[in-house]
């Protein structure tokens, strides 16, 4: 019996490794191309068939790309906006999601569908009126339009967290209500700690969304000292397309924080939590 299981496990693990490695080749390809292009001389960038291993390796592309524009400034701007957005989303979206998931207040469904509705109108037709609103607030060419809205919710994150909260058994809060706990205590002491993985997911997405956002900074920011990293990258593109190797070098640097953050946080996704003290 014991040997049987271990044979099944070896079989399972080998199969998993084969599938994962095949998948990793397919999914790793774009990034590998980026990396390889970032180390090529410009004349090799568009060679077909693709030259995967750059020869000679031009490490200098990185130095030149990063000194051509004030990337340090862009990094600081992006970091500030991204961190504030994450904090905003964590506060506003968790509260709203709990309200929508667990408190049967009047008009809840209408409000919830109104919230979902904000995702259903293409931004192409809402961006101009939105620009006018920010202009009247005096927020244009500041970072405010890029992070203040995060403190006022976000349909995607609220819907996501609501779904997680609704997977938790209600017995938890029924017991808590009998103990005389208020909704705020239940939210804080039970729902948040049990949804760590959901919160991590929100942090990852909020980070990516903010860090890689190109469209909104492009519309709302015009002074170069307020630029974010994606706007800085666009600079390489506009100049006749002759700087692909620099663009890729800068893109690799820009994507490293995303990769590190994801690598660091994915460790918390482990199979199965043991819900101790719960009905099993």
């Amino acid at each position, binding site marked *: 019996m014991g040997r049987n299981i271990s044979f099944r496990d070896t079989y399972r693990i080998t199969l998993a490794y084969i*599938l*994962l490695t095949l*998948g990793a080749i397919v*999914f790793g*390809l774009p990034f590998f*191309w*980026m990396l390889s*292009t970032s180390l090529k001389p410009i004349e090799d960038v568009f060679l*077909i068939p693709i030259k995967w291993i750059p020869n000679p390796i031009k490490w200098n592309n990185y130095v030149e790309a990063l000194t051509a524009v004030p990337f340090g400034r862009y990094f600081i701007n992006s970091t500030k906006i991204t961190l504030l957005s994450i904090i905003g989303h964590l*506060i*506003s979206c968790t*509260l*709203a999601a*709990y*309200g929508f998931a667990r*408190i049967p*207040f*009047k008009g809840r469904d209408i*409000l919830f569908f109104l*919230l*979902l*509705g*904000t*995702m*259903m*109108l293409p931004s*192409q*037709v*809402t961006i101009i*009126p*939105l620009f006018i*609103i920010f202009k009247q607030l005096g927020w244009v060419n500041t970072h405010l339009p890029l992070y203040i*809205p995060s*403190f*006022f*919710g976000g349909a995607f994150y609220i*819907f*996501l967290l609501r*779904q*997680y909260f*609704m*997977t*938790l058994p209600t017995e938890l809060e029924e017991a808590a209500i009998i103990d005389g706990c*208020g909704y705020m205590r239940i*939210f804080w002491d039970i729902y948040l700690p049990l949804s760590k*993985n*959901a919160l*991590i997911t929100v942090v990852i997405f909020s980070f990516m969304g903010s860090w890689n956002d190109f469209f909104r900074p492009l519309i709302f920011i015009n002074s170069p000292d307020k630029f974010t990293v994606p706007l800085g990258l666009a600079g390489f*593109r506009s100049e006749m397309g002759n700087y692909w190797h620099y663009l890729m070098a800068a*893109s690799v640097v820009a*994507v490293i924080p995303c*990769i590190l953050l994801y*690598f660091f946080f*994915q460790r918390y*996704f*482990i199979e*199965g939590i*043991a819900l101790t003290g*719960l009905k*099993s």
Partner: protein
Amino acid sequence: MKLLKSKKLRINLIGYGFVLLSVLGIFFFNLGPMISSFYLAFCNYDIITPPKFIGLTNFYSILFNDKIFWRAFVNTVYYVGVSVPLRLFLAFLIAILLNQKIRGMGIYRTIFYLPTVTSGVAMALIWTWVLNPSFGIINMVLNFFGIQGPAWLGDPKWAMPGIILVALWQVGTQVVIFLSGLQNVPIQFYEAAEIDGAGGFKKHLFITIPLISPIFFFNLVIGIIQSFQVFDKVYIMTAGGPANATIVYVMYLYEKAFTWLQMGYGSALAWILFFIIMMLTLLQFRFSKWVYYEGGR
């Protein structure tokens, strides 16, 4: 009676308190732009001169006199209908694979997420290369098996499947959502199933899928909302061609609003799309009995 009423009032107030910030957000940042685009849908508006009210003319022209609109609509339905189920299935499969306890998993997980964070330009160039009829990797692989690959983006019949193929690459977000959902499945359930002799496949069919059905539901609803608005990929790869074979809804809307400066017409298009997506979303909620919520509804 009075006591019951005041308790109801209290619950209402607490509820509003929790959702206050996001309701304010809707009023500050969404409702204004939504109302103004709704008004413009009934106007002739070229962005330069003030809008002129023309009633239902835009809607009438779109529905009865606009062949490209119907083309874009059909193409979008095709894209949504094929890509949403495929992506959902692929993302779930990858998430299950990435949820094994084996060494080096962090690296694998990160690699599968890479296309989702890789810069848009790099992705665009890679896509067109992958689908290149003579040098692209897909046709090279097909060639290896003795199959003559299609011209993909150059062929009206194969351009949309090509775009869908690229969309499959970017399932990273859905994978992460599934992966974090899998963590919510209490390990006791699996142990019980193993004692009962359930194998891997049965285990997932009868335990994992019901327990993470709220997450499935989320990915389905969001997947439909987002793929009806597919734009970037198409704009970069084909710009709607060849011969309008890949013109999609928002691509057409964008052309009307910004290339032809028919903002009123574009807004009317946007609101028709809004209506379609909203109806589909409401239907999904209406028929969501298959979604199992541990704590009830």
